[in-house]
């Protein structure tokens, strides 16, 4: 496919790795924020092409993995209610709630529908005025414009049986929180390219200057990712805490103002709890007061929340880059994609699933070659 195949050319990928090796003079720890990048790094063995001085640590950029258990429980509760259809992206359906997941709720008669786009959920609401249709709005800045538009369209068309269970999260506040955490090792970031497609990269300029870390906007193909690493290493070696764009075919400094202004019209910033990591101020989005009628959290009442059973799952540490999946005692033995204990083993972008699928039970198998 155009704009992806040419960025997998092994010659380009290996020459980027060689160039990184050539300019590296000392150890650097770089975090890729986005789970899509984690998956590509592990799948293509990009980390194993790098000089040993460069460590890539995997970040919290998997919206499915960080969605709070209480929201998963609320989604399940809605799916089990008469007259309600809970629509979700497929990734979310196997994420464990406090007692079960959406898939098992569905098997027991709950009304769960997997959709490709929130527009499909809006259409379902339009065609079934007797049903309450709720879309589980999970995702970063990339996804927020898609759910925002459905709300705006529902309002314009007078569709009043549609609402969002909002779990949207924002990337820059959690990057700052990681940098400020006591055990932080991250010296530079690969910023998530598709988030920046919407927001632009100017949002990272304050993070870079106030914390003295370089941030490089990076794409998703192997050559894109290594180009991002190369630019980051260059900035680190030169001691420059700047923002650079290594994904210029998709990202502009101002992003997509049409998309972001719709997000700002419909949503406002709120505090949000990230599963396994903690609550960060200003790290989420909620519907503005004018759109309260479309907020499933206000439209429905929910039972008392259950406490999550204590578990040995260390996915919170994995999402912060503090541990790698093979360091979890349950990895590949008790916990597998077939019977996942944590969201990082469920989602295709979770680091545990990426290691299990591409590196095997030991988590160490080497580079995938065709």
């Amino acid at each position: 496919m155009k704009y992806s195949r040419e960025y997998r050319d092994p010659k380009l990928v290996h020459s980027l790795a060689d160039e990184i090796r050539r300019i590296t003079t000392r150890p650097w720890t770089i975090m890729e924020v986005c789970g899509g990048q984690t998956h590509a790094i592990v799948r293509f063995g990009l980390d194993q092409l790098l000089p040993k001085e460069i460590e890539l640590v995997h970040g919290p950029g998997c919206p499915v993995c960080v969605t709070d258990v209480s929201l998963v429980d609320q989604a399940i509760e809605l799916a089990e209610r008469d007259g309600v259809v809970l629509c979700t992206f497929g990734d979310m359906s196997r994420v464990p709630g406090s007692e079960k997941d959406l898939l098992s709720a569905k098997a027991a008669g709950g009304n769960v529908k997997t959709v490709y786009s929130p527009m499909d959920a809006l259409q379902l609401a339009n065609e079934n005025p007797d049903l309450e249709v709720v879309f589980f709005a999970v995702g970063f800045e990339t996804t927020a414009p898609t759910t925002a538009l459905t709300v705006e369209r529902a309002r314009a068309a007078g569709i009043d049986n549609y609402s969002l269970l909002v779990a949207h999260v924002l990337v820059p506040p959690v990057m700052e929180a990681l940098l400020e955490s006591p055990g932080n090792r991250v010296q530079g970031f690969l910023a998530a390219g598709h988030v920046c497609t919407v927001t632009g990269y100017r949002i990272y300029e304050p993070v870079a200057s106030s914390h003295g870390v370089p941030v490089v906007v990076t794409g998703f193909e192997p050559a894109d990712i290594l180009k991002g690493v190369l630019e980051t290493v260059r900035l680190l070696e030169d001691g420059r805490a700047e923002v650079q764009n290594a994904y210029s075919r998709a990202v502009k400094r101002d992003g997509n103002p049409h998309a972001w202004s719709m997000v700002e019209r419909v949503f406002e910033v709120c505090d949000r709890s990230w599963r396994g990591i903690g609550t960060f101020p200003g790290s989420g989005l909620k519907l503005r007061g004018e759109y309260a009628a479309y907020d499933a959290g206000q439209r429905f009442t929910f039972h008392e929340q259950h406490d999550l059973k204590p578990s040995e799952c260390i996915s919170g540490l994995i999402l912060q880059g503090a541990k790698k999946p093979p360091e979890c005692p349950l990895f590949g033995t008790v916990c597998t994609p077939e019977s996942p204990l944590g969201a990082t083993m469920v989602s295709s972008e979770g680091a545990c699933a990426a290691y299990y699928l591409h590196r095997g039970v030991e988590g160490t198998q080497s580079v995938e070659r065709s």
Partner: protein
Amino acid sequence: MCLAIPGRILEVHGEGPLDLRGEVEFSGVRREVSLAYVPEAGKGDWVLVHAGFALQTVDEVEAQRTLEELKRLADAGGGLGAFDEGEPGA
């Protein structure tokens, strides 16, 4: 789940800015996507699509510039190995 896939616009339709839609082709598969956020995009343009929405028009000039820069680097060095097809992190 932030994956956005490049596709080419075959046709544009819809009434009003919020309803702007297009037929977009991804490696032979066609799908209707919302073009509400790329109102300037037209037939033949490449767009990045996420969850049924085009979020950005691919900048062909920048794409070319990046590839040339990468090729210059590759021509200066060597390179072995092979990578398979498919989507990263799909």
